[in-house]
């Protein structure tokens, strides 16, 4: 087993990986950009290395520096997390060339699944259904136009190297085609360093359901069932759940088998996710392979009991899976909500800044993968994800109730977050019945807009605070500064209890 792993990421996922390493008695090297010198992921590392300026290109995307630091510190392997270099085949190749184990697929598999057009062709060969679309990208607008005519509008523009909704554009008519391709190319270039885009038939109101697969280097492959990821805003998943309320066991088994054959066909090892769209007739189509640990991996861990990050490390070290498909079952129902620093009152504008107060929920069936702390200045340079809140319960109904309550008890003050928005989603009738698709957010805009119908309570609280608390605060602050009074035992401080005043 490895003795030292460099974690080429930041935030909650870097902490998640560090935890797995420490539990396996592996020491961790953390990296940070100058703006992250005070970030929480560094508290979970045995060694830390500054890798450059805040701009991602200068630090977290800087392949040369990261490889150099891994060598210098004696790291035997690198875990890339998600985002940044996680699906960058050049980085995987650079690791391979430097004799450092990349915790993920080989560069060959990464190149194959990373190229959406090439992976469509691979998938077709193993008889997994794909969405009608281009077999190759093009630099010629005419080719895009003729493909769109052939499959019929609406079509969708996608980044060939993409993921996470970046670079995607829905095109409903021919006149939108050219500007959409240009916009998609610009976003793809900025997000992935590659402007290549391609076209597909646009499936109307689908569900987005993916299967987690795990494959070792000895040929063993197991799927860990599905994740329902249809709750999306601007093609970005925000709430995921498993099991999917849409699948029955027959379709579930069929899709699980399809996912495994895709992974085998690509000779893909380590943890990977096969994404599908499912249309209203419950017909499914291969979408893409996500060649990384995903943001939403915790819900799978909770219902299957399998620690995905731990198995990523075991597989990368050459280990053999100690379980087979028949050993894996779904128990209970898990939901994840992604907590973002963004302002639902201002069109979800990013909201970095100082976290003045933080109280994270805890208790039965609650998991929080968090990358923040009270007093931290959330920098504006990176993805706005702050943490992930996951609930597990016996039934879907209780898991939803648990999530609703946990969101209510997730208090982040000082910056704007989407917590209230997430709570409104899980409280809607449509979510509770499970009858939703990827258009849920747009279709339920009305119900999801902040109503601020508790403004009276807020104003009462604010005026009570201003009237009664600010004086007390001043006293407290002095005591906290450690400058003043003689130490009293806690006993001496007793005696001023309120008497039945609530």
């Amino acid at each position, binding site marked *: 087993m490895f003795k030292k792993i460099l974690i080429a990421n930041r935030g909650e996922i870097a902490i998640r990986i560090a935890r797995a390493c420490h539990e396996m008695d592996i020491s961790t090297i953390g990296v940070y950009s100058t703006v992250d010198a005070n970030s929480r992921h560094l508290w979970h590392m045995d060694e830390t290395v500054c890798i450059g300026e*805040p*701009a991602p290109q200068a630090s977290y995307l800087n392949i040369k520096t990261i490889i150099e630091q891994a060598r210098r510190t004696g790291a035997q392997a690198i875990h890339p997390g998600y985002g940044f270099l996680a699906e960058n085949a050049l980085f995987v190749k650079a690791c391979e060339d430097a004799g450092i184990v990349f915790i993920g697929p080989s560069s060959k598999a990464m190149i194959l699944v990373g190229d959406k057009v090439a992976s469509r062709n691979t998938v077709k060969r193993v008889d997994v259904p794909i969405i009608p679309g281009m077999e190759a990208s093009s630099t010629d607008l005419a080719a895009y136009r003729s493909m769109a005519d052939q499959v019929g509008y609406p079509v969708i523009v996608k980044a060939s190297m993409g993921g996470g909704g*970046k670079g995607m554009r829905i095109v409903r008519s021919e006149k939108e085609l050219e500007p959409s391709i240009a916009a998609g190319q*610009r*976003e793809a270039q*900025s*997000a992935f360093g590659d402007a290549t885009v391609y076209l597909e038939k646009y499936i109307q109101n689908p569900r987005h359901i993916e299967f987690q697969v795990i494959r070792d280097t000895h040929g063993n492959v197991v799927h860990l069932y599905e994740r329902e990821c249809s709750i999306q805003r601007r093609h970005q998943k925000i709430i995921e759940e498993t099991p999917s309320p849409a699948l029955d066991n027959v379709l579930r088994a069929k899709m699980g088998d399809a996912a495994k054959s895709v992974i085998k066909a690509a000779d893909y090892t380590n943890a990977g996710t096969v994404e599908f769209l499912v249309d209203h007739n419950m017909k499914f189509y291969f979408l893409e392979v996500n060649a990384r640990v995903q943001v939403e991996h915790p819900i799978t861990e909770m219902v299957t009991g399998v620690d995905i990050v731990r198995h990523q490390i075991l597989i990368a070290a050459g280990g053999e899976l100690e379980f087979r498909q028949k050993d894996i079952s779904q128990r209970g129902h898990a939901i994840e909500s992604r907590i973002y*620093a*963004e302002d639902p*009152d*201002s*069109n979800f*504008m*990013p909201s*970095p800044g*100082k976290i*003045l*107060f933080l*109280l994270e929920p805890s208790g039965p069936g609650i998991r929080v993968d968090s990358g923040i702390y009270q007093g931290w200045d959330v920098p*504006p*340079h*990176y*993805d*706005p994800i702050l943490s992930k809140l996951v609930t597990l319960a016996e039934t879907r109904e209780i898991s939803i109730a648990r999530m*609703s309550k946990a*969101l*209510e008890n997730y*208090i982040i*003050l*000082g910056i*704007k*977050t989407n*917590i*209230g928005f997430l*709570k409104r989603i899980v409280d809607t009738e449509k979510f509770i019945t499970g009858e939703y698709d990827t258009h849920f957010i747009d279709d339920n805009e009305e119900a999801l807009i*902040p*109503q*601020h*119908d*508790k*403004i*009276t*309570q*807020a*104003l*009462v*609280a*604010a*005026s*009570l*605070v*201003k*009237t*009664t*608390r*600010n004086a007390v605060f001043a006293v*407290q602050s002095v005591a906290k500064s450690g400058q003043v009074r003689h130490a009293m035992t806690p006993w001496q401080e007793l005696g001023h209890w*309120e008497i039945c*005043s*609530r």
Partner: protein
Amino acid sequence: MKYKFEHLNKTHTVEIKKSDGGYQVTIDKKDYDIVNYSGHDNIVSFKLNKELNNIYYAQAGDTIYLAVGGDYYSLVLERGNVFKGTGAQVQKGDSVQSLMPGLLVKIMVAVGDDVKEGTTLAIVEAMKMQNELRAPRDGIVKRINYKEGDQVEALKPLVELEILKND
């Protein structure tokens, strides 16, 4: 005590006074009775219309942040000249600037260009989100202080315009 709090561009007037067994709070001329109040460092509890409320709060400057049963409020105590910007850009005289620091992805205009109100002047990216900076009024581009690929600072003039007098 009397306070004015701003919430999403609306001002609320709140008057609070001690009453028998609690407080009387008047909000925008409506009266409320508050009982069973208890206050801590970051949470206050009270009953309003027989309902128990546990409300978390934190303060910075004149802003008080509150979490009320899953709903969030930022109230700004008004005392004279308070910063009110909430949009993605603010105007200072004749320049356009980003409210956020970020990467200047694209400049859409050149010095000397004649621009109409609403024309996109530049695109700034922060937290993986792109924001378009638009001309607040008609004008002529006088100066551009950054080049594409630069990290722009918040509230620093990015594109300066000569605003056409419209009289």
